[in-house]
């Protein structure tokens, strides 16, 4: 007998609906809290969405944020944010900061003079400072980027609900969408709460979460559809429990491998993509939770058509349909 790592025992009989009200209430509460966080704190938009300039500075001497700020004071740039970046992958004498300058009034395009002035002022403070990356986005483009971001999230939600509706029943589609909105909203809430930078890459991360979460949900639904045809008399609730139990080891295993890979990236991938990877990692956890606890609850509430007297064209010819009407 070879050694086997069994994350989930062979035959689980967990009643996932035992805490139905609790989990659903918990999810609802998290969603409400997320909305509150979004309204109160707002998202910490990066320059992609707000316009403006970010300059990454790197120096061999420790950074004195106060001195940086003082040096930039005479330039009258309005809202300037300086944040020091810490990362385990940095060398001992590598000191990184992020300087963000908001879009200057009335400037449709990017002003190189401003950037040069800032760079000169900072070099005055610390001659070793270099500028490994400088990014500027004009207000015109940032407005459009917000629009496309919103469109892409909406478009993907619609496309997926249509696909699920075509492949399954409409109740599944509703369940899946509620779960997706749940995931996206809570992830955004966490971004608002901790004021993590929210930029174009974060939107890509959100969409990836949508993709992963739906992936998970679909696998459960697929098993549910199969079991609904197999156990025609079993109450919906029990069929659902059975389906989740049957797919549980797969869910845990896939989430496990994905998380392992992502955590490696989160820890070792450097600070440039950290918020992006964080969004995905967080989303995978919440997405796994929601496919088990949210999507199915919605389907259970809506109920599913159980009278399969009309044979399902997709299942036609399989053994499950041979017995006539139940």
């Amino acid at each position, binding site marked *: 007998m070879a050694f086997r790592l069994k994350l989930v025992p062979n035959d689980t009989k967990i009643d996932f609906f035992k805490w139905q009200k609790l989990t659903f209430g918990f999810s609802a509460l998290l969603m409400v809290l997320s909305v509150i966080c979004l309204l109160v704190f707002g998202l910490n938009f990066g320059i992609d969405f707000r316009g403006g300039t970010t300059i990454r500075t790197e120096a061999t001497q420790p950074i004195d944020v106060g001195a940086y700020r003082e040096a930039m004071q005479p330039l009258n740039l309005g809202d300037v944010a300086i944040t020091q970046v810490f990362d385990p992958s940095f060398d001992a004498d590598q000191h990184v900061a992020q300087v963000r300058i908001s879009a200057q009034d009335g400037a449709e395009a990017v002003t190189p003079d401003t950037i040069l002035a800032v760079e000169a002022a900072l070099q005055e403070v610390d001659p070793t400072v270099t500028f*490994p990356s400088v990014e500027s986005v004009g207000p015109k483009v940032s407005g459009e980027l917000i629009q496309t971001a919103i469109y892409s999230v909406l478009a993907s939600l619609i496309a997926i609900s249509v696909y699920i509706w075509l*492949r399954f029943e409409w109740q599944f589609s509703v369940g899946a969408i509620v779960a997706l909105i749940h995931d996206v909203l809570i992830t955004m809430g966490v971004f608002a709460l901790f004021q993590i930078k929210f930029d174009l890459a974060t939107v890509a991360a959100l969409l990836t979460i949508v993709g992963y979460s739906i992936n998970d949900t679909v696998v459960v639904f697929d098993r549910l559809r199969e079991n609904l045809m197999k156990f025609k008399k079993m109450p919906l609730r029990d069929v659902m429990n059975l389906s989740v139990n049957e797919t549980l080891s797969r869910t845990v295993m896939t989430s496990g491998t*994905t998380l*392992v890979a992502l955590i490696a990236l989160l820890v*070792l991938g*450097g600070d440039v*993509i950290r918020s992006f990877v964080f969004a995905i990692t967080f989303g995978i956890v919440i997405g796994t939770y929601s496919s088990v606890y949210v999507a199915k609850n919605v389907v259970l509430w809506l109920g599913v058509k159980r009278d399969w007297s009309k044979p399902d064209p997709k299942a036609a010819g399989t053994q499950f349909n041979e017995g006539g009407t139940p």
Partner: protein
Amino acid sequence: MLQIDRWKRILIIGLCVIGLAYALPNLFYKRVEAHNDAIVAVERAGGAATPEQEAAIAMWPGWMPASLVNLGLDLRGGAHLLAEVQVDQVYKARIDALWPELRTALAAQRDVIGAIRRVDSPTGTLAVEIENADQMAVAVEAARGLATPVATLTGAGQDDLEVTAQGNTLTVQLSEAEKALTDDRTILQSLEIVRRRVDEVGTREPTIMRQGEDRILIQVPGIGSAAELKALIGTTAQLTFNPVIASGGDPDATPGIGEIVLPSQDQPGVFYTLEETPVVTGEELTNAVPGTDQNGAPSVDFRFNPAGARKFGEYTSANVGQPFAIILDGEVISAPVIRQAITTGSGQISGSMDYEGANRLAVLLRAGALPAELTFLEERTVGPELGQDSIDAGKTASIVGFVAVIALMIASYGLFGVFASVALIINMGLVFGILSVIGATLTLPGIAGIVLTIGMAVDANVLVFERIREELRNSRGPARAIDKGYQNAMSAIVDANITTLIIAGILFMLGSGPVKGFAVTLSIGIITSVFTAIWVTRLLMVTWFERRRPRQIEV
């Protein structure tokens, strides 16, 4: 049952081998890159190779695939610019150039319409007052005679000019159809000129493409900063030769209609009043090279095309003794007096410039003028070290993630986990192979896409293995269990991957830059992982099964 046709086996193995062969060059990135660069350099030099270039070419065998994954700017370092072309500037130039023609056309009707006079009008329009307002119809007729039909499908039946009359004022402007057509031409022309200017400095594989209606995206790897790139392409280098009306020290001298006041480049405080419509423009240049003038100072020697040479010759012979201005980007470089007719079609610009300046001016003139100004909406610079750091970090993370996933799979599924791991390795190879072949650009989020794929790629295998476990519990024979396992897992695999593919498609369509790169690696990863998880593991399993014929299997 557990059988795979021979042709299918050959196909599966063949695809894997081809994919891996195309991925291989990426393991020797620097070497292959030097090899490719040398080949391009030799080709440009017309086949003659230096010993170093020959050595570089010999570093990679010629019969091997040599395409590499393009590294995005965030990985390689470089500059990114998004520019908007001010298309409506062209309308003004077009309409202003129409004035002499219109004047001639109306002058021919002087007996009927009386005296004519150009009057002030909004930019991009041309307004003319005529003496006999009751004869306006004749004037409109004459002006319409200058219009030509627009040659597009949508603009069929429309003329390029719109002529309207109100009272005694005749107004001419470009029609909507012509504006649309002009916009398109302006963008294409700008693209071409930006491309030529960037090519002149010889950096590797710049991306220069149109984005949306009136934008140009420029990405140049290896360039120091976006500001440098802007200095190179942002200069309009609009060269014109205009007749001089007067010169003086007053910058606020009121010019007449159709006249402009421009400063001198090297004499502060000197301003010229010039005729706005140029005699010849830089567009009629065929060549420009740096040289020296008779005093040994740097200069740029240029040559006109036949049409330009004719115009230049006609004007200079009719205006001997008159001053004449050479204007570059709104400044008078020099205003020499015409000594004799210049009919050879060549000339020289000299003024206060150093050799480097002369060289740069020659490059700009040769590449032609941008038809309209560019406004920069977005600019990003990534230093090469930051890019290298990101690559290193991404590499470490991928390898650690990879090893961890393999360990998890083998610990959970034993031999079957080994099969899945082999498939995963082949999958990675295929992803890189495909990325290299299609010349896709790998960005930082793209690396994240690959890492995510590593995690998710095993999903299909997990689904299959879990199904096989279930089938085994229902005590079917091993062969039948494996077969059923694949069959039953199929619909979940298909649904799950199609939905993810939908997302990747949307990301690709709506995303820009790095996000697009993420979408590309994600979708390629999905497709290859389905192939390897279903076919490669199956082939491995079947081959193993045929050799061992186990009575019992454990998954």
